[in-house]
Structures are given as structure tokens and as C-alpha cells.
């Protein structure tokens, strides 16, 4: 060690500098560099980070508890909202809208603060945005790795299952699945699996079953992708080299194949996040998603859209929140794809 050090000190500074130039850049480092040069992706990333902070610190930021009702504030809006939505004419000017400036963007039909509910609602959308991919990757990776690596009848069987799942109309299936989960965990026998699931779900405000429902319906894409990637990686020389050095199957899979196929997986899942978010919003919209009083942007839009022509603010503000977060994930996903695989730039 000390010999090297002395040598470094003795050698002219020019050589040392040359060495730092030669130092290689890993795939991930150069990808990060490319990502940070993409302005839209960074905007997306910033929106997501801000949203995460809002979700974490919701109790501090929200002006009121999300379930607090006040019937005197029913359907009220602050004055500025009436200028944004010209059809909402306040009572003083001969209209029908009550003004209450203590609510930042208005209150809903039960007199609950819309802003606080949107702030707490971000927790649901973000949880789905992160747990959805985790479930899809966990299941899809297992199936895809097994199918791609073992091949033969394992591959045939698993891929046939994937094909059948694909034939299921996704939305129909998820509605059916959620109905099954919702009602079979409502009054189960104590100690049974349903009872445990139901307990967990109530503790999470209805989110737990959504995760399972989304996970069960969206692992197929990941499985197909992983299988394809494994099939192409399996034939590469470095796998042959590793095998000839005596690396066993699990080591090959997780140490050698997995890190090399990770890029496309991350890109695919990031681009699927908006789909998960919209599934949750849709499920909450038709009443199979989060359970009252837990607010979700989907359920807020559902409640608000019943009075869309009279009180548009109740549906449109949560809709905008949903729009921004989906926009952000789409931009980040596009940016990640360009960064991790520059060849794919400009091709859908």
C-alpha cells in the first residue's frame, strides 16, 4: 500500500491527472447524468418529491382534519374561486354560492375542507404509485425469471397463464376482484385469512385490498418483459463465462442476469405508474376503492362530479391534483427511458 502511495507522490502530477481521465463511468452514473440534463424529467421528479413531502407532512400542512365536518360551511367557496369559475355567482351578486374565505379552495357537501382532503388524498395516490410497481415486479420478476431461465414446460405453462390473464378484460376483473375482497372481508370468521386481510385493510383505510387487486391484475406485462430479457441475456458470453467458473443457478440469476436487465424493468414500471394511479382513482370513484372517511382523489372527483355544474371546484381541484401527479410520473418515465437506453429516444 505504502509503496503505491510513494509512487503516486513521486510521479509527475500530469500522470495522476491522466489516470483520473481514464476512470470509467458506470452505466448508472452516465444514465443519471443524462436524466439530469432532461428538463421535463426533472420537473416531473420535483413535482413527485414535493408530493411525497406533502403526503408525509399532511398532518402539519393540512389546515383542518380531513374528516372534520361543519354544516354551516356546506358547499362554501372563498371569493377567488368565484372568479376562476365564472358560473359560480355569489349570493351578494344574485347567485347561489355562499362565500366563506376561511376555506382555501372551498368545502364539500358535508362541509369538509377540500384542501385538507386533497392533501391527505395524496397519500393514497402515492402509496399506490410505489406499492403497485413493487407488487407487479415481485410477482412478474419471479414468473419471468423462472420462465426465461428454465425454459421448456415451465416456460410454456407460465406463459400460457399470462396469455389467459391477458384475455381477461382488466377493468372487469379488477371490479370483480375488489367486490370479492370487499365483501368477503366484511364479516368473516374470526382468525381466518379474510379476517386478517380485512383487519389490515381497515387499518390502511381501504388501501391494502387495492394493492392486492392492482398487483394481481398487472404482473403479466412485467413477467413477459423479464422473460424476454432473460432469454436474450442467457445467451450472452458473460453468462457462459460465469457458468464455466462454477456459479450456480441462483447466483447466475440474481448476481449476473438480474442487474443486467434492471434498466428496462425500471423504465417499464415507471411508465405504468400512471395506470396504477388511475386504477385506484377509478375504483374509489365507483366506491370499491378507499373507504370513508379516508379521502382519495378518485372518490373526491366522484363526489364532486355529482354537482359539477353548480360546484365545479369540488371535482376540478382534486382532478387537477391527479393530473399533475400523473403528468409528473409520465415525464419521469420518458426521461428514464431516454437516459437508460439512448437508442430508444424518439421511438415510442
Amino acid at each position, binding site marked *: 500500500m505504502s509503496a503505491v502511495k510513494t509512487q503516486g507522490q513521486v510521479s509527475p502530477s500530469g500522470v495522476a491527472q491522466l489516470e483520473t481521465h481514464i476512470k470509467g463511468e458506470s452505466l448508472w452514473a452516465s444514465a443519471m447524468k443524462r436524466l439530469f440534463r432532461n428538463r421535463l424529467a426533472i420537473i416531473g421528479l420535483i413535482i413527485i418529491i414535493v408530493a411525497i413531502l406533502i403526503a408525509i407532512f399532511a398532518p402539519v400542512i393540512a389546515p383542518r382534519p380531513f374528516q372534520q365536518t361543519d354544516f354551516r360551511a356546506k358547499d362554501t367557496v372563498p371569493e377567488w374561486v368565484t372568479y376562476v369559475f365564472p358560473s359560480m355567482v355569489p349570493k351578494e351578486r344574485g347567485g347561489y354560492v355562499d362565500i366563506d374565505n376561511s376555506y382555501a379552495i372551498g368545502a364539500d357537501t358535508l362541509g369538509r375542507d377540500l384542501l385538507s382532503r386533497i392533501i391527505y388524498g395524496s397519500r393514497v395516490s402515492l402509496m399506490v404509485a410505489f406499492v403497485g410497481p413493487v407488487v407487479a415486479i415481485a410477482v412478474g420478476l419471479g414468473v419471468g425469471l423462472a420462465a426465461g431461465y428454465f425454459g421448456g414446460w415451465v416456460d410454456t405453462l407460465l406463459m400460457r397463464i399470462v396469455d*389467459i390473464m391477458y384475455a*381477461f*378484460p382488466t377493468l372487469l376483473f379488477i*371490479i370483480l376482484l375488489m367486490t370479492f375482497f370487499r365483501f368477503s372481508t366484511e364479516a368473516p370468521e374470526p382468525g381466518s385469512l379474510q379476517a386478517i386481510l380485512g383487519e389490515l385493510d381497515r387499518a390502511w383505510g381501504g388501501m391494502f385490498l387495492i394493492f392486492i387487486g392492482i398487483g394481481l391484475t398487472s404482473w403479466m406485462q412485467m413477467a413477459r418483459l423479464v422473460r424476454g430479457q432473460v432469454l436474450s441475456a442467457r445467451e450472452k458470453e458473460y453468462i457462459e463465462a460465469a457458468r464455466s467458473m462454477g456459479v450456480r443457478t441462483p447466483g447466475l440469476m440474481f448476481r449476473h442476469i438480474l442487474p443486467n436487465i434492471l434498466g428496462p424493468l425500471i423504465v417499464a414500471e415507471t411508465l405504468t405508474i*400512471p395506470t396504477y394511479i388511475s386504477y385506484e382513482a377509478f375504483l374509489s370513484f365507483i366506491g370499491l376503492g378507499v373507504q370513508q372517511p379516508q379521502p382519495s382523489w378518485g372518490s373526491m372527483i366522484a363526489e364532486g362530479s355529482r354537482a*359539477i355544474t353548480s360546484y365545479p371546484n369540488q371535482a376540478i381541484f382534486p382532478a387537477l391534483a391527479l393530473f399533475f401527479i400523473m*403528468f409528473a410520473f409520465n415525464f419521469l418515465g420518458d426521461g428514464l427511458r431516454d437516459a437508460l437506453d439512448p437508442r430508444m429516444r424518439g421511438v415510442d
Partner: protein
Amino acid sequence: MAKFIVRRLLWLAVVLLVVSAITFVLLRAVPGGPFQTERGVPEPVLRALEEKFNLNAPLIDQYLKYLSDILVPTITGPEYRRTLTTDFLINIDLPFLGEEAAFRWMNFGPSLRVRSRTVNMIFTENLPISIQLGSAALVVAIAIGVPLGIVAALRRNTWVDYSSMGVAIIGVSVPIIVMAPILQYIFGAVWKVLPASGWGRPEHIILPAFTLGFAQSALMARLTRASLLQVLNEDYIRTARAKGLSERVVVLLHALKNSLIPVVTVIGPLFAILVTGTFVTETIFAVPGMGRYFVTSVGNRDFTVVMGTILLYAAFLVLANLVVDIVYAWLDPRIRYT
């Protein structure tokens, strides 16, 4: 090719069998039945109803009976009367076999909740509405998406390209439940030019069709752009340019036609997705189509309606993909199936 189609149709049968089994098991595992009402039903009545609709038989018998009602075709003579239990979706007259002889197939059974109707009646009433809505949305998706994609590809890396692809990203990021209330408010409440919800008059279809089609138009635009860009890099385009053809002829005659092959082939599954994906749109805009009916039926445990809808939609999705594969081979002679 024929072998390929036969194999795919056999596969379709397997898929539908598995789909029906999973759906049946899931549906029956949900607590509550179709005859439950808020006031409760007297025990003898409940038992009589279950007897009538064969719901007290062992589950496997019920499942097999349901399947055979759908799968086994019958040829009926003049004695045939349409009743709640003998209502077939496909009825073909066979005049050469005698007076009033007919080939009848696919009996989806009676609705368990609305006891004066059969599942087929509900299909014939609600499905056309969903198909109309889906078709209108498809027109919207193509009319917006394809021109946008072509323009973006021809003006690659200019502001035209960036702004059209920006519109495409917005289209992908705006879910229907966001788009719908905004359109309802602007057109229904502020400008008062279109009805915010409802069904029956021609103008009712505009907002839901646009909402449903816009998101898909973004995908169409991306696909068209990518495909046209790829074609413009082909050798035969270089040849066309080299022979001195004008840019207009090269693009319109040589590039565009070939670049639309992938676009044409996605129309099949896209149509299937649009028709089977109308739940949210129908719910928000109060459109009385199959999507909205399905959501209610699941809540009501209307087993036969739910089973029928899922089977019909699954068959539709698989067939749409099969049609695409066939059209693909027909449009692009380089593709051959074995």
C-alpha cells in the same frame, strides 16, 4: 394460415373456459346473493327462488349447466316459444328444414335480479350503446391522433413535433375521471352548448366520445410518428428520393401508406379496448350502456349478467387480436404464420 387460425380459435375456447371458471368461483365466493334486498327475504321465498334458478344445486353442477346452456346449440321446430330460460343470442332460420325451424345458440340465461329480463335482452339493449360510444371514440382517436403523428414525424425535432408530442403526453396523463368533469363544466355549465350528461339525443355522445377517445388519440399519435419515422429511414424511400421524386410524392405515395400498417392493425384491439372500457365514461356521463350496467350487476350479485358480460368481452378481446394478426399478414407480405 388456416392452421394458424384454427389453432388460435381452439386457444380461444381454452381461454374462455378458464376465464369462466375463475369468474364463477370468484362470484360465488362473494357473500350475499342476488335475491337479497334491504328488507330481507322470507326463508321459504328465498328457497323457492333458489330452487327456480338452480342455485341450490352443487356448484359444479351449476357451472356445467350454465356452460352447456351457452355452448350447446339446438335446432327448434314450431313448438319453440321464447321464455326467460330459452332466450338465445344467435337465432338463424333454417327454412330448408321445415316451417319455423331455427338454429339457436348461446343461451345466457335469465337475469337473477331483474326477473322479467334475460341476459340476452340486457345485451341487446345496452351493448349497442357501448358499441356506439366506443366507435365514436375510435373515430375521435384516429381523427386527432393520425394527423398529429404525421405532422410530428415530418417536422421532426421542430416546435411542431415537440408541441404535438406534448399534447400526446397530456392525453396519456389525463385520466377519464379528470377529463370528464372539466369538459362537463366548460361545455355544460359555462358555455351551455352541450348537455353535461344523459343519453338519447345525438349531441349527448360528443362529450363522452371525446373524453374516451382523447387518451387513445395520444397513443395513436405516438405510434404514427414512430412508424412514419422508421419508414422514412428505409432503403426504398432513399431509392424514391434518388430517382428524383418530389418530397410530396415520396411522403404521400411511398412512406405514408406503409407507415399506416401498424396503425391499422392496432385499430382492432383499440376498438375492443374502447368498447369494453367504457365503465368510467358511462358512469360519469350517465350513459345507459353495458359498462354501467356491469358495475351495478356486480353490486347486485346478478351472477348470470356478470358471467355473460365477462365471457362476451373476453371473446371480443381475443377475436380482435386474431383479426389483427390476419390483417397484418395480409397487409405486409413479409409476415407468414405457421
